[in-house]
């Protein structure tokens, strides 16, 4: 009698593990607004499905901790792993660990350095970072032209964390757009980092204002910094109608600032879409299906003209 109960119990255990797919997720860090939306995208997508269990861990921006988490996932026998890499140049070891154990792996949001040599059961889901800074800067360029500054305009550039790939890429996008014939009337007065932070951007902008230079635009690598710049300019009594300010992310705070007429341009990166896309890719790989190795979720330009479409997105 006892044996049958145990056997039945074991059988039911086995059958549930056979049905439920376990996906391990290692996020670069939890206390980042954008990555939180992405993480929620994974969780919501998983909650909407039957038999998908996700276990999400926080690598706390520590490369070594992230690799440990991946090895722990492999050891506990997950069906697939999603990694939001802390350091995009440290991904080869993760690829090797997962592929030698035969566990499918999906990189999300940040492009791994070995993206072109990923094994068949690994994929990369993100938005193409080149789009964001380009969309933002080109729109600012068009706005300045439309306001009659085509003969010459001056701009400040706020960079994110200098070690971050997105910051490097977006800053390069700005330089590239400002190098185009149509936009080379814009001169960059100074470019500095405010580490993605509203508080630091507020201080940086106030410092710039103290030098009394004439300027027409502030191009920031993200919305938080754009908002910090706006707060500083308003505190100094500037009319926000006279300055074109752009950011990236289309956060709720940024959209509210756009509705109030302070922020002119932002770019929506579909974080939730990346999260759900990564989960779907991971499940497909776990089931042995074919998946595109690079899945790009497009960036979308947000201006006062189309802001209504985005108010409930992030």
């Amino acid at each position, binding site marked *: 009698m006892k044996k049958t109960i145990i056997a039945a119990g074991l059988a039911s255990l086995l059958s549930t593990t056979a049905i439920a797919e376990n996906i391990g997720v290692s996020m670069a860090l939890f206390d980042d607004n954008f990555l939180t939306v992405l993480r929620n995208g994974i969780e919501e997508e998983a909650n909407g499905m039957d038999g998908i269990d996700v276990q999400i861990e926080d690598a706390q921006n520590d490369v070594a901790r992230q690799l440990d988490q991946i090895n722990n996932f492999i050891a506990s026998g997950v069906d697939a792993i999603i990694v939001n890499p802390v350091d995009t140049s440290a991904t080869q070891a993760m690829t090797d660990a997962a592929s030698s154990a035969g566990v499918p792996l999906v990189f999300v949001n940040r492009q791994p350095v070995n993206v072109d040599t990923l094994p068949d059961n690994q994929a990369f889901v993100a938005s193409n970072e080149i789009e964001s800074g380009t969309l933002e800067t080109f729109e600012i360029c068009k706005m300045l032209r439309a306001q009659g500054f085509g003969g010459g305009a001056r701009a400040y550039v706020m960079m994110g964390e200098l070690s971050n790939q997105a910051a490097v890429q977006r800053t390069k996008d700005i330089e590239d757009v400002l190098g185009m014939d149509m936009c080379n009337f814009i001169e960059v007065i100074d470019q500095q980092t405010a580490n993605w932070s*509203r508080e630091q951007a507020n201080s940086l902008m*106030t410092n710039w204002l103290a030098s009394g230079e004439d300027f027409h635009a502030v191009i920031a690598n993200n919305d938080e910094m754009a908002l910090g710049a706006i707060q500083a300019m308003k505190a100094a009594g500037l009319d926000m109608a006279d300055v074109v300010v752009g950011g990236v992310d289309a956060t709720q*705070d940024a959209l509210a600032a756009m509705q109030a007429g302070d922020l002119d341009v932002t770019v929506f990166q579909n974080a939730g879409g990346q999260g759900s896309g990564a989960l779907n890719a991971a499940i497909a790989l776990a089931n042995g299906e074919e998946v595109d190795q690079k899945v790009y979720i497009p960036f979308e330009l947000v201006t006062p003209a189309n802001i209504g479409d985005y108010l409930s997105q992030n």
Partner: protein
Amino acid sequence: MADQTSHGIGGLTYDKSKRAWPNEANVFIALVLIILAFEALGQILPYMNSQSMLFDFNTNRDGTILNVARIKIVILQVSIIGIISLGVTQVIISGGIDLSSGPLVGAAAMIVMSFGQTELVNGQINPKAVFGPWAFDLPVIVPILAGLSFGALIGCVNGSLIAFTRIPPFIATLGMFLICRGISQWWTKGQPVSFPTEQFAAIGSGMMPVVWFALLAVLLFFIMKFTVYGKHTYAIGSNEDAARMSGINVKRHKVLVYMIASMLAAFAAIVLSSKNLTAQAGMGQFYELYAIAMAVIGGVSLTGGRGSIVGTVLGAMVFGVIQSGFTFIKLDAFYQLMAMGTIIIGAVVLDQYRQQRSMAG
């Protein structure tokens, strides 16, 4: 006692002939030298077109020969960390250290802002609401009290651990560092908390952070200089055993010291979240280290018993001048941290050197 003080260790005594001015004067001189260095760079560097950092002789934008906007931001940008450094100063003087203040700022900001949210944003319901409708548009005293009580609680735990279990302050507050960062992330699962009420936004708007910093600095200056609390803090930091034997309730006093430090950090969080109109789980990163650095540059000794609020305020000014100076001379962002670190180390090395010379008698 007028000429000799027992603040030294190992029989080293204060020698008036070798030490003609107070320690704070060193920091002040360093501050002036750094300002002069930036002014000189403004004249020398070819791309600067002979601009001045703190003066404005030509355009006269503010109606004075001073560049008022620059002077304001020099102080404004260090006011919030400055508030934390006031509390850290008295912790270090008591012979301890507080590493938890930065993450405490993050956690307190999240908690505070959750009680300070407004209902309508551009006519719609606040998209970042943490609680239900009952928490919208509460009187401003509610978030303030929530923040200060949280600070008091954390400080009480820090102080009690250090006083009663005798674990080193570095370890106790390192643990609290992690706990507070955890709390700030857990509170809204990483989501930012935004859109405060107008009353709440007024706390940190404009130059208000400077006003708070100045008021609290004056208050702490009097407490440390003229009250029993201050004297006991110095006594414990100089020689804890002697302080205990002379009848000071060292344990209770330590709990108080850490409570005051954490409440100041929580108040900094109130001002910070109000100024930025948002609270984010990552707020306050490195604030604990900058607060400690401000105190140390201001002449507060990590071995305890020595330092002052005036020194710390000057140390904060040094930070502000350096930060503004870097932007003024358009120093490439990649070099700023290296330069900042070098200046911090240099300032303390110089101070140590002077002290050893003055005490070597």
